[in-house]
């Protein structure tokens, strides 16, 4: 491993004279942080090597990068990884711009550590994407928790009724091994970095800085414009990126993977629609007495709460509520918070499901729908969520909002992940949509390379937008609909929606569709 990195380090400098100066110092730091414990003695050696790199001078006529990725987070790194693993795109020169020091660190996690509260539920579609880009093997070495069961609970209280509807989803219903896997974000990020550094033939450079300005050349149609561009600058056809550390680079294509407050989106003047939910989510890691193997979600009038297994008797809690409640829960004593979570997941919401009048009706209806096909979990009994014994990690609160860019692409610029769309976290779909973007954009670029297309060409980028935007918009509408359906607290409506969701439990085709859609392998629910 070590020697590989060293080799990488060297070749990087030989290949990429552009990335001299502060860059090479950064590689040195990266290297040191990678090598742990007793091996740290190799650091000076690495520094010596990197010093050679500084001999290379950046010139104003530097070759442009093929692609500049702004934001080296999960989605940005997944995109870089996808490029490096495709024979069509592995020769590209890539600049990664991110001032997050974590990008340089490869930390390994010990299983005894308490899981980080920032986790993602990756769908089977994302898992197969990770396998393709060689990152899943690194995830498997770290803490991760597959789950094959999911139970969604819709309590209903009112109109003299007291009833709890539920739907149990089982991976077996759709012939899958699992419904998803809960992985800490830092594990995902580390896995992508590891895969990228070990397998990348890409000529890449890391710029540890922020993007301070971006100049996209205006489209020209006539020769006079071409001529004036030519006189203005030798790289008049490319995007010029000025960084906070004084570096300037040019790129044929800029990929904005810089999150929901994307600088790239703003600088490229790509418009977006935003809405705040006037809700915040509080997240933390909790401990159980026994290992949790099922994902739980309960819709409460104040917002959904989810309990996701993260392995080793730990679970992750994502609880949406009003902002003032969230800050109250954040400052609460640990035991009190554990009690509050237990109450929200189970207690205080009346009897167990199936005992009410409504439950009997729905079950009767289900006997008529059984000819649609067997659903093994339809008859599975309700299970109570495991009790939380302690809050194990720090708590984090973040406001919830919805954002969708009107266009994902413009000339020489493309947005991926949260920069293009931010969703309600209730179904854990946000990052999966981002990985879908990364995969689709890398594929479109590979197609472009195969026919010698200029990577920044709008017609090429539009194909990526076409592939992703409709699907993402559908997913956003569904999640937004869920959020709205459960945010309204009106008696009859509550009954209706509890019945509707409870009914989904007994209609196998509907249920299969919901599972498949949430697994990320179908574009349109019910119509495929």
């Amino acid at each position, binding site marked *: 491993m070590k020697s590989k990195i060293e080799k990488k380090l060297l070749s990087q400098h030989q290949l990429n004279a552009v990335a001299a100066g502060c860059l090479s110092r950064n590689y040195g730091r990266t290297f040191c942080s990678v090598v742990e414990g007793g091996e740290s003695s190799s650091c000076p050696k690495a520094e010596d090597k990197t010093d050679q790199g500084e001999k290379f001078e950046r010139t104003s006529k530097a*070759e*442009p990068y093929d692609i500049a990725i702004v934001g080296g987070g999960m989605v940005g790194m997944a995109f870089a990884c996808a490029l490096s693993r495709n*024979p*069509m*795109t*592995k*020769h590209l020169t890539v600049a990664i711009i991110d001032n997050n020091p974590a990008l340089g660190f490869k930390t390994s996690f010990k299983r005894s550590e308490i899981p980080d509260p920032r986790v993602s539920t990756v769908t089977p579609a994302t898992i197969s994407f990770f396998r393709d880009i060689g990152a899943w093997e690194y995830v498997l070495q770290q803490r991760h928790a597959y789950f094959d069961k999911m139970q969604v609970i819709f309590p209903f209280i009112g109109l003299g009724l007291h009833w709890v509807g539920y739907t149990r989803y089982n991976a077996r219903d759709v012939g899958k091994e699992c419904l998803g896997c809960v992985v800490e974000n830092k594990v995902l990020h580390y896995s992508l970095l590891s895969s990228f550094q070990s397998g990348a033939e890409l000529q890449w450079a890391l710029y540890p800085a922020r993007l301070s300005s971006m100049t996209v050349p205006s*489209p*020209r*149609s*006539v*020769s*006079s414009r*071409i*001529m004036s*561009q*030519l006189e203005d600058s030798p*790289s*008049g*056809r*490319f995007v010029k990126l000025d960084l906070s550390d004084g570096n300037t680079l040019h790129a*044929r294509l800029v990929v904005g993977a810089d999150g929901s407050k994307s600088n790239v989106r703003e600088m490229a003047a790509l418009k977006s629609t935003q809405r705040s939910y006037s809700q915040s989510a509080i997240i933390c890691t909790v401990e159980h007495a026994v290992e949790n193997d099922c994902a739980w979600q309960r819709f409460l009038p104040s917002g959904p709460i989810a309990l996701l297994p993260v392995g080793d008797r730990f679970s992750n809690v994502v609880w949406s509520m009003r902002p003032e409640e969230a800050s109250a829960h954040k400052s609460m004593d640990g035991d009190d918070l554990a009690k509050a979570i237990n109450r929200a997941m189970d207690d205080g919401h009346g009897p167990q499901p199936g005992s009410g009048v409504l439950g009997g009706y729905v079950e009767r209806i289900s006997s008529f729908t059984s000819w649609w096909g067997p659903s093994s979990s339809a008859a599975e009994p309700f299970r109570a969520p495991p009790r939380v014994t302690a809050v194990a990690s720090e708590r984090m609160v973040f406001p919830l909002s919805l954002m969708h860019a009107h266009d994902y692409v413009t000339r020489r610029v493309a947005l991926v992940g949260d920069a293009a769309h931010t969703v309600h976290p209730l179904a854990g779909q946000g990052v999966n949509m981002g990985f879908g973007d990364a995969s689709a954009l890398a594929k479109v670029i590979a*197609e*472009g*390379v*195969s*026919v*010698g*297309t*200029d990577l920044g*060409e*709008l*017609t090429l980028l539009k194909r990526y937008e076409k592939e992703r935007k409709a699907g993402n918009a559908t997913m956003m509408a569904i999640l937004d609909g869920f959020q709205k359906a459960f945010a309204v607290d009106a008696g009859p409506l509550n009954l209706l929606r509890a019945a509707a969701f409870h009914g989904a439990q007994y209609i196998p085709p509907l249920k299969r569709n919901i599972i498949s859609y949430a697994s990320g392998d179908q574009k349109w629910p019910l119509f495929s």
Partner: protein
Amino acid sequence: MALRWCLRGLALGRAIGSSSSRLQLQQSTNNALFSARSLPQALQWWRSRADAPLPPSSPLPLIHLPPPDESKHRGSAEGDPLTFSAFSSSVDEVEVAKFAAIADTWWDSDGPFKPLHSMNPTRLSFIRSALCRHFGRDPNCAKPLEGLKIVDVGCGGGILSEPLARMGAVVTGIDAVEKNIKIANLHAELDPVTSSIEYRCATAEKMAEEQQTFDAVISLEVIEHVSDPAGFCKSLGDLAVPDGAIVISTINRTIRSYAVTIVAAEYILGWLPKGTHQWSSFVTPEELVLIMQRASISVQEMAGFVYNPLTGEWSLSDDTSVNYVACGIKRNP
């Protein structure tokens, strides 16, 4: 569709002089002609025209030149009259004038060359796989044409030459219009990857006279614009090394091609300047195979390009009734 042509030719100066006297020059604005119209509007406008397109069996419709900027025109012709008078063969002077007028817009992907831009990836994927098969290259890499010497005859603004260069080929682009070569040069110089392309204002005949040879000779959407397709084809053959590849694309002479490329593309949709194509100059696949054979080129594969109006995308197909492409191999003499 075809907006390139190559030529053997008469001096451009003469071409312009004669074209303005012989032809009805239409001086309406460029934009009105090129912009897409709504269908009802377009139909009404079309019906109202006295000189609406004639059916295929009739004599040639009048040629309406797009509004040339004559001062510019003359400028470029005067700038280099010798280049053109040096050509001994029969370049079609009308065609030369027609394309010089819109040379500025080569790289405007929404301009008069829009159909060519949208068709480009499909044409390139045919060329890529045909050349990979013939030269035994690995198609599963980024630069499968690495080191191949290719000439793009009728390169226009370079929209085919540049992708070929990105695919690793050593490209020479030639065109009879000085202005096209200027545009192509300026555009290619903007990117280090394409700046190695050598552009020349020349005809296939002239290059053949100089005894230049290439591994592959590519001439797309050109042959329907030359006055002597058989002679043109012979020159292309002369440019190829023995066992080299020759790729030619053009438009079939069918009722459908008349409806699609002239009535729809030029008159109804306004994608192409009116008068871009002459139906009678189109070449059928049988004719193309024949003239290629006479030029010692044996045709290996042929494919049609089909446009899907719903997705706006082109794809390769067996249907050669409108646009099609043929790849042949130069037989040893």
